[in-house]
């Protein structure tokens, strides 16, 4: 069927090198595959989020994908006023008959890259650089820590948050300083879950000959040779699927949780990092992945109880 899809990015904008950009990649692919144009909108403040959602709904766009946890309240308000329009929200949960909530098991993906980090660390010390200090980012950190400890129980995981405002996702300078400080404390692999801040982390790793792990989209290409892998969160796929389902008439409201088994999160292996991954490592990763999928390994979700006790 012919659909009029739209997407509303959150305030970080569609080129945040993080999930907004992932969504952007997803819809670009969708447009290429189907020829259907997707209406994009980039509000810059709270009021505009609601305003743009409302305007899109008024003009009959559906489904409307809202990107990011920040949009929850606006989506919930607008969805109430436009019961005939389909809304999909990524990274947020809203219980309404015309809203689809898509969330990810970031802890599982982080666990995976933690395992790989531990296997690559010669010092048994690894680092984690988070962006803004919010539960979502702690969730990454906590999953990562579990993965590391799974391989090397007595390993040290140095965790730092870049800051406490949205700017923390966009401060590569600080990212590079944090990474360098972690290196100086002995870390030799660093996982950055910090949006644009990560660029600085990867750069620092490159400059010091250490390893870094990317996040959200596959960032292996950014510093080939020192990017160990990336923890990919397939928001692109989520957006793509929402539109695809709508086109096929299969779109359904409700909660959609995308974990390892659904292909929602994963680790990235490509030409850029294949030189760093030995066959043993690859095998181990596959095994761990399988164990998580079949439930042999249970990864604790920080957000379930706001602690990292596992």
């Amino acid at each position: 069927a012919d659909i009029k899809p739209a997407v509303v990015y959150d305030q970080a904008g569609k080129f945040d090198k993080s999930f907004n950009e992932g969504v952007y990649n997803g819809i670009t692919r969708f447009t290429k595959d189907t020829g259907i144009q997707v209406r994009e909108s980039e509000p810059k403040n709270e009021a505009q989020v609601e305003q743009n959602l409302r305007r899109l709904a008024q003009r009959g766009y559906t489904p409307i994908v809202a990107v990011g946890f920040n949009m929850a309240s606006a989506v919930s308000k607008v969805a109430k006023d436009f019961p005939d329009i389909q809304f999909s929200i990524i990274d947020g949960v809203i219980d309404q008959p015309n809203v689809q909530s898509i969330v990810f098991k970031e802890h599982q993906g982080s666990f995976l890259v933690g395992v790989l980090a531990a296997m690559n660390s010669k010092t048994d010390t690894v680092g984690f650089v988070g962006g803004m200090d919010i539960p979502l980012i702690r969730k990454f950190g906590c999953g990562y820590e579990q993965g590391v400890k799974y391989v090397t129980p007595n390993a040290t995981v140095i965790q730092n948050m870049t800051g406490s405002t949205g700017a923390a996702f966009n401060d590569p300078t600080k990212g590079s300083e944090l990474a360098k400080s972690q290196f100086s404390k002995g870390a030799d692999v660093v996982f950055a879950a910090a949006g644009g801040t990560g660029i600085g982390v990867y750069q620092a790793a490159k400059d010091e000959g250490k390893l870094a792990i990317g996040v959200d989209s596959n960032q292996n290409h950014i510093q080939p040779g020192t990017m160990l892998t990336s923890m990919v969160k397939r928001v692109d796929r989520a957006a793509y699927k929402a539109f695809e389902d709508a086109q096929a008439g299969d779109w359904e409201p409700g909660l959609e949780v995308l974990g390892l088994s659904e292909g929602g999160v994963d680790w990235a292996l490509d030409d850029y990092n294949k030189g760093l991954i030995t066959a043993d490592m690859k095998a181990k990763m596959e095994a761990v992945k399988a164990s998580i999928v079949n439930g042999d390994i249970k990864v604790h979700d920080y957000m379930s109880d706001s602690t990292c006790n596992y």
Partner: protein
Amino acid sequence: MFETLILILDATLRVSTPLILAALAGLFSERSGIVDIGLEGKMLGGAFAAAAAAAVFGSAWIGLAFAILASVGLALIHGFACITHRGDHIVSGVAINTIVAGLTVTLGLDWFSQGGQTPALTGDARFTSIVFPFAEQIADVPVIGLIYSELLSGHNILVYMAFVFVPATYWIVFKTRFGLRLRAVGENPHAVDTAGISVALVRYRAVIICGILCGIAGAYLSTAHNAGFLKDMSAGKGYMALAALIFGKWRPVPVLFACLLFGFLDAVAVRLQGVALPGIGEVPVQAIEVLPYVLTVLLLAGFIGKAVGPKAIGKPYVKERA
């Protein structure tokens, strides 16, 4: 312990560099009587121009040249407003900061379609570290080895430039004809005018030097310390540089130390994060983050008390009332 200290100092140098450059920039401007709250914007504009040019031409030096051009251009706008048209210095600075914040992203988006960022820079498009001769060899000599190989060696050229600029600034401001006129024009422009020197010309020159230094600071941000331009990447450094300038009472060497202090706090904060301090426990991220700002306020209030700047600062030079 010693090694940690060296590493923190090493980081201090890196973090202080843009502050030093910007604060010296401010020193020239403010010594001439022109308040410059637009250091931030000029740095940001410089950072963007540097990264954009470096990305296009593949050369960090060309990037630096463009950074200087852009920043001087902004400085001239400031001069045009404050010197030629006797505008309010702070308002002009705020305007420049606002324009640059929007324009860098707008142009970046139009030119590179990466959400206002420039492409990541690699190779010659970045300033890379300079390793001093024999740094490797003597790295293991106790104390000196570490200082030489870690602290002194291994920075990029702009860092060394910043530190060379401090004595250079001192010499220019206090030992040259231009410096004499610069100081005079910030204290009593009428005296300068009646001595047959054009007040506007001296101030324009000061503002241009300010632009050059801010441009270098900006280039450092995007092509040396980082590898590309990001929205709002100056992140308040211009304001911190201004605070350092006031601490240092508009004198090059004390200003240097103020910048180093801020840099040091930043470097320590990075390392203090998540560390449980004896007796205090783990300090919240926000508390550490806020430290330089609180300290600035405390120092301003207690330590240096009333900072008395150049006497004619911020006052437009009016010869004839219309």
